[in-house]
């Protein structure tokens, strides 16, 4: 049953979005029907609730987190849901007439229904987290509702402020609720409500209180978070009417009331809630006086009235709680009707500005009368509902709850606030309906359509009826609600209009007469038409908020982002090196690691000399990398060679072979790339030209590099001098031949034991080749490297200058003898590749080495003959080779499935062939063949793609020249 309250609005919302946008009536009827159904349902549930029963619905959502979809209707929730749905029906009816033809109504009603659903969700939640869910949903949906007319900048700002403030509060509240859940051990509302003492006595009570209050006070626009509410006025008036009366802002006080039994009654509660409430009560009322916008006035009045409710709740006395609940209802009725009235004025006259409005009584007497009654209720005039709750408030205000200054001040402050309320109520009525006939209204005012006024009629009637015979009308409902909050603490109270001459009555009288007097005293000031109250006008909440938001979320954030981050590479690298260094060193330093002793003995002088050369190469390469790229590359090659020799020296022939081959290809690649990096002009290296800053930076980098190098040296030395632990290597050494079928253990590891690594590794090569290829297809060299290199231009010029020579003779001559040899070397490299490939399983070599070796054969041909020459003769399909390679390697692995073994299980068989004898047929060889094919393809592809740029560049150069010529013309 309860689920209808949630399901119907949300489903309706969803359906409403699909209404055509010109179907204003139909959409409104639909939305109204939904609201009505909900209202009728709550009406129907009353008898059940009235007997003190609690209606529950529990659906599992995330039981692991204690979050269940629990709906729970007690009297208080019932009162709220009745209010929400009832006013919802009226607002829909009103909106049907209010919304203009061109407004996309389906969106409006969809959002409206969603909002109603969220609000119902809040009041019906039986689980704290579910409450938070609906809580934030009202923030989100209200954001969309306030920003409904998003072409209007005010609407956008208003929506944003509302969401930011209430959303923030909601997030804080969530934390508070989670902590409550932790204290109680459950998020279930019943459980929570039963654990008041545990919560109040918990050391974290203060924290929880502040967090929860952040949510509640922001939502109900309490000082100092009040300023979002007036800006929410930019919403369509039906929305304002709804948000300000029964929903949104009421959610805050609803929560305060809901948690009142478990949170209230402490000093902290009294002070925080009371201070916020009193400040809001007075300031809201005071500000309301000085508004020029009808809706603005009402908005501040709402703030003030919510302050009143908050003060009531802060007092911690059950009677005050009753008053609070009562005022919630009363405020909803008169405020909704007032907003609607203001909307009617706006709708029919075209403005809400009190400076332009005047004497409307003449044009819309019924509306004016209704508005007057509602205003009177707002002002707390006797025989209207507002009076009753205010009297109760006064009565509570003079009671002493706690002995302190705040408590003492409460009666005076409330009287002053009530006085202000009278003033602004009077102002609302007087400036709009009385005075001289209006002069510059955009429209000629008249009474609204009959049904547009009907909701106002109804609500004003309610104000009157409740005001006159409260006990017979609202009484039982109120009692039901109050009992559900206060339970056994429910006090005796009477809802009579007349309680005799007592202090509250005097206070009311003072407020009424004072308010009227104040209004007439201030008329001249108000007539100046200045928006906003004196002095405080300068302190606009919105502007402060905007300033703060811009400063925090924009200026500071941007400077912080720039300060804490960087878009340069060098600092990032520096940080990375530094952090890595620290990360590696800290465990050793903190752990008190013992460094091994330094052993100088047994140093091979040849090896030492070799590494002296290697170190020289490395340092030289670093030194030359800026201005002598070629020299740096040469030195890098030297370091590579020393590395290769080291591998041989230290029993790793496979590594040496591979490193050597890779070395060669890398060198050629980088040289191919150097073509596109014009020579760096040597900068003047005079000492004065290098700034101190640069020097310091270099010194810092040098120190960091030295530290990194030193650390690597230390850790390498440490590791290498430690005894080898039990390693998995023994397993490989023992099984490489017997089970892997090869004597070269490294190769067996690569193609069998850890063949999967190799598969991944060739995939990496494949990816890189494809990337290089794709990127180079889009390569656009810098203009200064488009031209042929200087050498070629000179040589071509030379050839051109000599009649007996043709262009290209120079290079042909240059390469004449070498190319003969290089051509013959092609089959030789092929032979070498075949040899490396076939012996790989038993001796150093393998598919990878073979592939690289053969690709070097191709490079030689390209170097000697040029791209065109080679490609006219050899059909090279590196992409296909790569594809085949990867497929063969994968398929070999999959092949073992046929024999019922996992991927890559190798099979080694010996086939006996005539003449030849036993031939090893290991699947690993097939796998290696795939490796070979892929490596060959990938390497050749990268080299060719890079080499092709030289063929493309002249074309591009010609085109660039052409464009330039055209531009010149």
């Amino acid at each position, binding site marked *: 049953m309860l689920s209808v309250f949630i399901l119907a609005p949300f489903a309706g919302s969803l359906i409403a979005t699909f209404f055509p946008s010109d179907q204003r009536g139909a959409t409104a009827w639909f939305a109204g029907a939904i609201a009505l159904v909900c209202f009728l349902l709550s009406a129907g549930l009353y008898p059940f609730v009235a007997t003190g029963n609690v209606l529950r619905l529990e659906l599992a959502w995330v039981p692991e987190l204690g979050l269940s979809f629990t709906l729970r209707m007690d009297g208080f929730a019932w009162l709220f849901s009745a209010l929400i749905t009832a006013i919802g029906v009226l607002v829909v009816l009103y909106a049907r007439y209010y919304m203009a033809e061109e407004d996309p109504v389906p969106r409006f009603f969809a959002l409206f229904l969603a909002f109603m659903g969220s609000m119902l969700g809040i009041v019906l939640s039986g689980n704290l987290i579910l409450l938070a869910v609906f809580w934030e949903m009202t923030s989100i949906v209200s954001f969309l509702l306030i920003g409904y007319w998003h072409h209007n900048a005010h609407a956008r700002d208003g929506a944003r402020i509302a969401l930011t403030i209430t959303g923030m509060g909601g997030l804080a509240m969530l934390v508070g609720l989670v902590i409550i859940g932790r204290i109680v051990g459950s998020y279930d509302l019943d459980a929570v409500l039963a654990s008041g003492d545990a919560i109040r006595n918990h050391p974290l009570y203060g924290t929880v209180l502040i967090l929860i209050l952040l949510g509640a006070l922001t939502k109900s626009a309490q000082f100092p978070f009040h300023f979002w509410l007036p800006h929410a006025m930019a919403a369509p008036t039906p929305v304002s009417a709804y948000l300000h009366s029964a929903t949104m802002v009421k959610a805050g006080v609803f929560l305060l009331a809901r948690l009142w039994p478990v949170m209230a009654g402490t000093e902290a509660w009294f002070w925080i809630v009371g201070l916020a409430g009193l400040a809001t009560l007075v300031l809201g009322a005071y500000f309301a006086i000085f508004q020029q916008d009808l809706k603005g006035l009402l908005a501040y009045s709402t703030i003030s009235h919510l302050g009143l409710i908050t003060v009531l709740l802060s007092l911690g006395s059950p009677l005050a709680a009753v008053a609070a609940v009562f005022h919630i209802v009363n405020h909803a009725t008169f405020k909704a009707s007032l907003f609607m009235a203001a909307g009617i004025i706006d709708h029919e006259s075209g403005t809400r500005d009190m400076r332009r409005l005047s004497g409307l009584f003449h044009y819309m007497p019924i509306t004016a009368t209704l508005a007057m009654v509602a205003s009177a209720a707002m002002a707390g005039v006797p025989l209207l509902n507002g009076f009753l709750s205010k009297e109760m408030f006064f009565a509570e205000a003079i009671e002493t709850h706690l002995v302190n200054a705040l408590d003492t001040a409460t009666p005076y402050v409330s009287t002053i606030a009530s006085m202000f309320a009278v003033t602004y109520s009077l102002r609302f009525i007087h400036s709009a309906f009385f005075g001289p006939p209006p002069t510059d209204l955009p429209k000629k005012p008249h009474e609204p359509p009959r049904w547009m006024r009907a909701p106002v009629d109804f609500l004003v009637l309610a104000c009157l009826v409740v005001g006159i015979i409260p006990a017979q009308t609202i009484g039982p409902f109120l009692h039901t609600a109050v009992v559900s909050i206060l339970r056994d603490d429910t006090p005796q109270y009477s809802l009579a209009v007349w309680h005799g001459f007592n202090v509250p009555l005097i206070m009311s009288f003072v407020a009424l007469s004072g308010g009227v007097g104040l209004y007439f005293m201030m008329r001249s000031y108000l007539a100046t038409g200045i928006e906003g109250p004196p002095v405080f006008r300068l302190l606009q909440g919105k502007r402060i908020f905007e300033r703060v938001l811009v400063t925090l979320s924009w200026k500071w954030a941007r400077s912080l982002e720039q300060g804490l981050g960087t878009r340069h590479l060098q600092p990032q690298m520096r940080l990375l090196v530094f952090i890595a260094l620290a990360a590696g060193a800290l465990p050793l330093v903190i752990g008190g690691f013992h460094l091994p002793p330094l052993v100088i003995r047994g140093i091979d002088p040849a090896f030492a000399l070799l590494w002296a050369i290697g170190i020289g190469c490395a340092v030289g390469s670093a030194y030359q990398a800026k201005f002598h790229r070629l020299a740096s590359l040469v030195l890098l090659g030297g370091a590579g060679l020393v590395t290769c020799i080291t591998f041989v020296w230290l029993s790793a022939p496979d590594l040496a072979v591979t490193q050597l081959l890779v070395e060669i290809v890398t060198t050629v690649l980088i040289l191919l790339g150097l073509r596109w990096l014009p020579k760096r002009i040597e900068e003047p290296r005079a000492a004065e030209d290098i700034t101190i800053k640069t020097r310091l930076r270099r010194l810092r980098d040098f120190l960091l590099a030295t530290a990194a190098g030193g650390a690597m040296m230390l850790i390498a030395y440490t590791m290498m001098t430690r005894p080898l632990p039990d390693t998995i290597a023994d397993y490989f050494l023992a099984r490489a031949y017997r089970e892997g079928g090869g004597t070269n253990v490294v190769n067996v590891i690569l193609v069998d034991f850890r063949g999967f690594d190799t598969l991944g590794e060739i995939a990496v090569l494949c990816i890189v080749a494809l990337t290089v290829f794709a990127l180079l297809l889009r390569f656009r060299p810098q203009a200064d490297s488009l031209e042929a290199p200087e050498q070629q231009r000179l040589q071509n010029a030379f050839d051109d200058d000599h009649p007996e020579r043709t262009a290209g003779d120079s290079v042909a001559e240059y390469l*004449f003898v070498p190319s*003969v040899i290089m051509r*013959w070397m*092609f*089959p*030789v490299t092929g032979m070498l590749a075949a040899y490396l490939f076939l012996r790989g399983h038993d001796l150093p070599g393998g598919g990878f080495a073979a592939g690289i070796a053969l690709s070097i054969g191709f490079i030689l041909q390209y170097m000697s003959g040029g791209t065109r020459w080679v490609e006219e003769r050899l059909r090279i399909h590196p992409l296909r080779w790569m594809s085949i390679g990867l497929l063969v390697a994968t398929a070999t692995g999959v092949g073992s499935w046929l024999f019922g073994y996992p991927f890559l299980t190798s099979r080694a068989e010996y086939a006996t062939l005539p*003449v030849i*004898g036993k031939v090893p047929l290991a699947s690993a060889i097939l796998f290696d063949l795939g490796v070979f094919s892929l490596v060959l393809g990938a390497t050749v592809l990268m080299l060719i793609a890079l080499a092709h740029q030289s063929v493309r560049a002249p074309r591009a150069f010609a085109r660039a020249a052409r464009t330039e010529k055209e531009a010149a013309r």
Partner: protein
Amino acid sequence: MRTWFPYPLLSTGLFLMWLLLNQSVAPGSILLGIVVSTGLAWVALKLQPRRSHLGRWWRLPGFGLAVVADIARSNLAVALIILRARRRPSRAGFMTVDLDLEDENALALLACIVTATPGTACLEFDRRSKVLLLHVLDIENEELWRRTVKHYEAELKEIFQ
């Protein structure tokens, strides 16, 4: 035969290389060697290297030995030059030799031999005028060098007929 063995010399060379690499004359090894070297010769065909005919291949070993002897001599001579480099003024210089060798492979081999021999280095060969530019460490023996080169050329002409 040509279709199967487009470059018999190359195939033979490759086959020999195969045997040397594998250190094996087992039937399987030989068969594989034949297959690989033949296949590679086919690939080489695509690049169309100029064919040469080894007319008198039997003169090759003798020629090789002579070259090795020259190399040994040159090594000694160059070593002396290097060791005395600081004490004696440089006598290095460029010289040219006119050649009339037609076969491009023979020419390449000649250039190789000359360059491989310490003390002489081919720098440039003008195909139109058939002039070989050399750099020699010891220009005082220019005539000797020229004679040596011409001698090699003559030998190679004999072999590549």
